[in-house]
């Protein structure tokens, strides 16, 4: 019972070439699907005729079917469909484009739901108050509703991004050379699958935690207007045993003073 550590180090080195591919898929899918998901959410909220039930059907389908089925549909059916339009050159398209399409379509559906629920969490009174002080409906939406909705959407966007990162490991089925695909081909030579997948696991953990950290900073930045200033607030706990913070801050360690004291002694 021992893992082939040499092989693991080797996979670790070669699989790093797949990291940009994975990140590329995630970024492209996110950047394209964020605005589209937002528009779809607006379509659902304002109950636009004809479009609203279509969006609903689309979201229900994407959320109700496994990603692998969507990949198989797009990857096996789309090229032949495309070939009828642009001819034989459709079969020589780089498979990463299909990955872009699949993951974008997939995250549009999740983000539609995210934005829809986020826009609905904003109290109706906020809109009314904005209109009351004389803002136009559009102004109120952009200046009052949107900043608040974005803050409540961010945790869910983080989740959607994490799902996207995890799901992008399925891109190897479309013969995209991402982390999983590189490790898999490496392992196939010597049948060291366990070692290869452990390395891939570590890579995904690193990417996912980095993304989580990034979104944590974003969340802190966008919710800065919600932060309460605890220092200035009145201490309502009359009989609490907590000491006021000011007294703690007053006692400070001064190394110079101590040195002088020692000298005197």
């Amino acid at each position, binding site marked *: 019972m021992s893992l082939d550590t040499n092989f693991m180090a080797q996979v670790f080195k070669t699989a790093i070439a797949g990291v940009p591919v994975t990140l590329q898929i995630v970024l492209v899918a996110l950047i394209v699907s964020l605005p589209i998901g937002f528009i779809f959410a607006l379509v659902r909220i304002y109950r636009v005729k004809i479009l609203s039930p279509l969006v609903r059907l689309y979201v229900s389908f994407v959320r109700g079917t*496994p990603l692998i089925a969507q990949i198989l549909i797009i990857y096996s059916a789309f090229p032949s469909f495309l070939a009828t339009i642009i001819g034989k050159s459709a079969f020589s398209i780089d498979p990463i484009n299909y990955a872009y399409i699949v993951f974008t379509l997939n995250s549009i559906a999740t983000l539609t739901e995210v934005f829809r629920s986020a826009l609905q969490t904003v109290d109706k009174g906020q809109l009314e108050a904005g209109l009351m002080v004389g803002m136009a409906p559009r102004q109120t939406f952009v200046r009052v509703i949107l900043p608040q909705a974005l803050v409540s959407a961010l945790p869910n966007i983080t989740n959607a991004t994490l799902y996207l990162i995890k799901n992008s490991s399925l891109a190897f089925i479309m013969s995209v050379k991402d982390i999983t695909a590189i490790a898999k081909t490496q392992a196939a030579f010597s049948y060291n699958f366990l070692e290869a997948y*452990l390395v891939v696991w570590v890579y995904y953990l690193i990417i996912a935690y980095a993304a989580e950290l990034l979104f944590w900073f974003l969340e802190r930045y966008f919710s800065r207007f919600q932060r309460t200033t605890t220092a200035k607030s009145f201490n309502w706990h009359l009989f609490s045993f907590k000491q006021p913070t000011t007294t703690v801050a007053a006692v400070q360690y001064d190394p110079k003073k101590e040195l002088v004291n020692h000298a005197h002694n």
Partner: protein
Amino acid sequence: MTTLALIYKFLIQILPAIQITLIISVASIILGGLLGAALTRAKLSSHWWWRAIANVYISVIRATPAIIMIFVVYYGLPFLIKGWFHVSIEGWNRMYFVVIALTLLFSAPVAEIFRSAYLAVPAGQKEAALMVGMSPWQAFIRITLPQTFVIALPNLANAIINLLKEGALTFTIGVVDMVAKAQMIVANNSGGFAFETYGALALIYWVISLAIDKLVSLVESSFQKKRQAIQP
């Protein structure tokens, strides 16, 4: 109309494999639910090391792609068992490995759902139960648990649908489930009718997801009815 007829034809061919998907899903829902409940207990524990273990476990599982989990369990578990107990389990039915992987994957979100639902039950409920003379265990089983369950239901439905979708990756380690069956049909037609076959596959999953959604909302509304205040 020929497309629809073809989809129907492939639907009938794929459908017998549904039992494997269902067996795997139900087994991992039950086992994952139990593991998730244990994790919830650990997260609410007063000892910090239990909380730390549960937190680390949940955050690692949350960041693990389903396919990597399935592969690591499939290749790693026989390796570990051989090293520890000197027993070879490579001949096991591959469904067991999938069930173990999905159990691990399912337990993390379920623990989070159970925890938030448990904390959402007002503390007064438990205190009232203890007041009327129930033991803490009785109070938990009869008063807190049913309410926790009702609060957890909508999120649980989401988690179960996610599990079902992750279960579609079973085919990657060679179990002949619906996806593998669809791929075989496409291969038999030498790559033809791919759209119709995979469309039929997606339809089956869609119907199952919608059914789970509907079922859970029915259960939820029937529970909500019991929560109504006493009529004057």
